């Protein structure tokens, strides 16, 4: 199968299908596929998590995702990039993000994959609110300044 020679990116409220992302990154010239999946885990910063709610500035987030994929395609020399980010309420062990990269060689596939997730975490306007075992909820600030410490909690 040969895919369109352009990256595929989207925000979705449906479960992420890793196999579908891998198919989007396939091409007869690609000897390597690397898939990254971010998953809702049961503990964050020492607190027991029961679920996460993802929200976004959707129009801008979609643009940033597309830009990241286009930049990665140029930087790493492959158009075979598929990125999905989930929005809405996610249960433990559900996938929040999936990134598939196909490349003729494994070095390019790994490097592009890692670059994309780092860029995504830095640039794409998506937020998450963790739900904890004690029933509380808090916006997560990965910069290390919890919203609650700044008085911005719920």
């Amino acid at each position, binding site marked *: 199968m040969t895919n369109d020679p352009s990256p595929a990116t989207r925000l979705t409220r449906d479960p992420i299908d890793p196999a579908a992302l891998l198919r989007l990154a396939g091409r007869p010239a690609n000897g390597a596929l690397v898939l990254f999946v*971010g998953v809702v885990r049961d503990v964050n910063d020492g607190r027991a998590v029961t679920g996460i709610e*993802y*929200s*976004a*500035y959707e*129009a*801008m*987030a979609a*643009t940033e995702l597309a830009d990241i994929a286009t930049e990665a395609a140029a930087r790493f020399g492959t158009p075979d990039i598929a990125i999905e*980010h989930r929005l809405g309420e996610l249960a433990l062990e559900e996938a*929040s*993000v999936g990134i598939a990269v196909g490349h003729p060689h494994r070095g390019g596939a790994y490097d592009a994959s890692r670059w994309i*997730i780092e860029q*995504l*975490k*830095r*640039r*794409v*306007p*998506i*937020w*998450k*609110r963790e739900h904890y075992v004690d029933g509380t909820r808090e*916006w*997560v*600030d*990965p*910069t290390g*300044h919890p*919203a609650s410490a*700044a*008085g*911005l*909690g*719920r």
Partner: protein
Amino acid sequence: MSVTVLLFASYADALGASSVQLELPPDATVADVLADLRGRPGAQLLPPAPLVAVNQRYARADSAVRAGDEVAVIPPVAGG
């Protein structure tokens, strides 16, 4: 001129709104938008230099804001 400011996540919670309509002078900048917001209840909780986007692109404090622009004040992103 009239400018729409979008607020998200913890900032929307703090200011009690997901969008506000501002009236600004015609030569306004992002800094003016932030200064206006800081006069509102809950806005003391904004950090000193929040991320801002104008028309869905990240913008600097001295970026111009024009009538009809969509300005967004963006809490620390947490995707992935």
